[in-house]
């Protein structure tokens, strides 16, 4: 037992690997939030009036709203006037190709493990990179363009495809949805936009990497993905941030819209800076993600591996409106040191014969608190709805906590709902079995934890699965000698 504690202790001593910052001369807005700042951001992006009006409406609503307190997380009050709401790496002109990208930026991405230049040669993934709220490079645009797929930064989409943005922006996550969604609607600076036309299967993984770089900066990106009838897309999102002593706010909104027979697979590997081992610093990750299965037989699948952030507040959800539509949520959330995660999903069954599946694996270590919060709601008209939920928690050490808050609301008698939850620890007999086969304790823990999370990791596209596995081990791992 004492040895286990020692190992755990050493795990907790692992420092954040992505903690460096790049010297990119930033183009910042002054601190604080007001109508003027909203106007500043909008002007900065040369936005049309309708979008400015939309932002202002969101801002006015936000001012009247209260920050939610129901989540099982505790943090000192955020001073929204002490945040910089816009920070762009300085660019002299709009870029036409990667060759023109600031070499410093390219280096940044290489350090992140995503080489944009590499991407030119690989055929696997198209990347949109967002640093401090501004999209800096999108790869594979022309290849995708031939299929009619639009994959670009959000600001570019506002210019090039205003009709799509105007129609779908806020259609899944309305301005009024919640405090952080309203805030995002007012001040979002960039993000990714993706449209897959009718009947097109996107031939490669689309990917966005987000990074917060400047100090005191909030990041408020917005992602909108539309899959038209019969379309398919698999989308990956990754994120990191430098080590900083103060907390930084990240309040993103992701909207997915799936038409008839369309399928969207959205995967996230979240590795924002979690704060140091005394709980100082780290990202406040307050994110609203929602998908609308609008058409019949549509499908939306969320997969997330959450290892970073000081606080995670995130419930990727599915509104199953179309008949026979399907929603999935696969999640691994790891918390260590003083991290707090309150994450889960909502499956709202509206259409007939809709199905949903929830697999959540929480792992708590150190002094962290890890909560699953989910809702399965079968509405009156949703005949023959099915849901299966499995929520497991693994505790490592006796100073952390694991919590499950599942809400199951059924208004239709034909529904079949199954929910199971278990809590366990890594068995000493499992560790000994590994040791006896020559596997050291650190590797044994990594092996067992990855096994525990396998059902979720299996959902990730190949490109991400390996990274996610390493990240899981890293978050819990130390330098056991």
């Amino acid at each position, binding site marked *: 037992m004492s040895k286990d504690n020692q190992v755990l202790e050493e795990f907790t001593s692992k420092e954040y690997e992505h903690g460096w910052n790049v010297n990119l001369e930033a183009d910042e807005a002054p601190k604080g939030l007001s109508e003027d700042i909203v106007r500043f951001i909008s002007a900065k992006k040369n936005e049309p009036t309708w979008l400015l009006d939309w932002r202002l409406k969101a801002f006015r609503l936000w001012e009247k709203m209260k920050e939610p307190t129901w989540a099982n997380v505790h943090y000192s009050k955020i001073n929204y006037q002490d945040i910089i709401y816009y920070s762009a790496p300085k660019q002299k002109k709009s870029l036409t190709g990667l060759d023109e990208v600031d070499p410093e930026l390219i280096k940044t991405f290489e350090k992140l493990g995503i080489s944009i230049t590499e991407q030119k040669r690989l055929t696997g993934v198209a990347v949109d990179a967002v640093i401090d709220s501004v999209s800096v490079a999108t790869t594979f645009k022309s290849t995708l363009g031939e299929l009619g797929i639009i994959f670009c930064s959000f600001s570019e989409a506002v210019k090039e495809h205003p009709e799509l943005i105007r129609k779908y922006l806020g259609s899944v996550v309305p301005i009024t949805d919640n405090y952080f969604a309203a805030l995002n609607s007012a001040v979002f600076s960039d993000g990714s936009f993706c449209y897959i036309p009718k009947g097109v299967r996107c031939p490669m993984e689309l990917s966005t990497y987000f990074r917060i770089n400047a100090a005191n900066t909030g990041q408020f990106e917005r992602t909108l993905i539309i899959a038209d009838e019969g379309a398919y897309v698999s989308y990956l999102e990754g994120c990191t941030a430098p080590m900083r002593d103060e907390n930084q706010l990240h309040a993103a909104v992701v909207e997915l819209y799936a038409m008839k027979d369309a399928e969207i697979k959205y995967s996230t590997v979240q590795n924002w800076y979690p704060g140091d081992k005394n709980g100082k610093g780290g990202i406040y990750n307050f994110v609203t993600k929602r998908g609308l299965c609008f058409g019949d037989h549509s499908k939306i699948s969320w997969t997330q591996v959450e290892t970073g952030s000081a606080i995670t507040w995130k419930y990727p959800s599915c509104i199953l409106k179309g008949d026979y539509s399907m929603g999935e949520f696969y999640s691994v959330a790891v918390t260590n040191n003083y991290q707090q995660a309150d994450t889960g999903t909502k499956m709202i069954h509206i259409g007939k014969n809709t199905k949903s599946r929830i697999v959540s694996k929480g792992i708590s270590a150190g002094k962290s608190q890890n909560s699953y919060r989910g809702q399965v709601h079968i509405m009156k008209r949703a005949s023959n709805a099915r849901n299966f939920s499995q929520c497991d928690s693994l505790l490592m050490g006796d100073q952390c906590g694991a919590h499950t808050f599942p809400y199951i609301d059924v208004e239709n008698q034909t529904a079949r709902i199954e929910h199971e939850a278990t809590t366990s620890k890594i068995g*000493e007999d499992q560790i000994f*079995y590994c040791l006896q086969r020559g596997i050291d304790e650190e590797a044994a823990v990594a*092996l067992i934890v990855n*096994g525990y999370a396998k059902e979720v990791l299996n959902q990730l596209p190949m490109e991400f699965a390996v990274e996610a596995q390493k990240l899981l081990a890293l978050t819990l791992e130390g330098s056991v000698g």
Partner: protein
Amino acid sequence: MMLSIKNLQAKIGKKQILNGIDLQVNAGEVHAIMGPNGSGKSTLASVLAGREDYEVTEGEVLFNGKNLFDFEPSDRAAEGIFLAFQYPVEIPGVSTINFMKTAVNKIRQYRGQSPLDAVAFLQLMKEKMKLVEIDQSLLSRSLNEGFSGGEKKRNEIFQMAMLEPKLSILDETDSGLDIDALKIVANGVNSLRSKNNATIVVTHYQRLLDYIVPDFVHVLYKGKIVKSGTKELAKELEAKGYDWIKNEAALV
């Protein structure tokens, strides 16, 4: 001398279980350790493998001339000690293949060898699979999860074949096996026997020893070896039962 145990005493909690064991095992030998329930057979196996629950209070164990107690459990495995568990542990989500790949390469690393790549590993695995008549589909499943008793034990022998230990300790490997499974397991063990390795078979019954024929048989009672002999001793035990030993021990 591969293994030399001198006056080994061990306890779990406050309960003394081993009361001075002496045992010598040379390369190429098969030793059977028999004894009634609670005599300390499994404890001996666990102490050699380094299970933390047991505290060694007295005595010395040399393995190839090195003090065994200087080594962590995983290093003992890398030094060449293999324990086939009486109750193999389930690890959900981890396939036997993945488990063995990790183990083989960790042990190679310990020995200063380069890791096996996927192709070489697969080749090794295929070769060993034949030896113990185990199906690859079983090895792709989560380790021991939902395995039958026979499958679990066969998986243990497969792992033994993969890791090529110097000293294998089979802890009640026959328990819960029907005769066909017993034969398959025994065939596996026999085909792995060589003049360079040794085996300790821990068992309650003589049955297994019909298939894995020992060079020496030791009877453990109340934490001590009270009688040693050849395979004939096992037959005698089968015929007379353990009471005979108990009575004899009581007289001493």
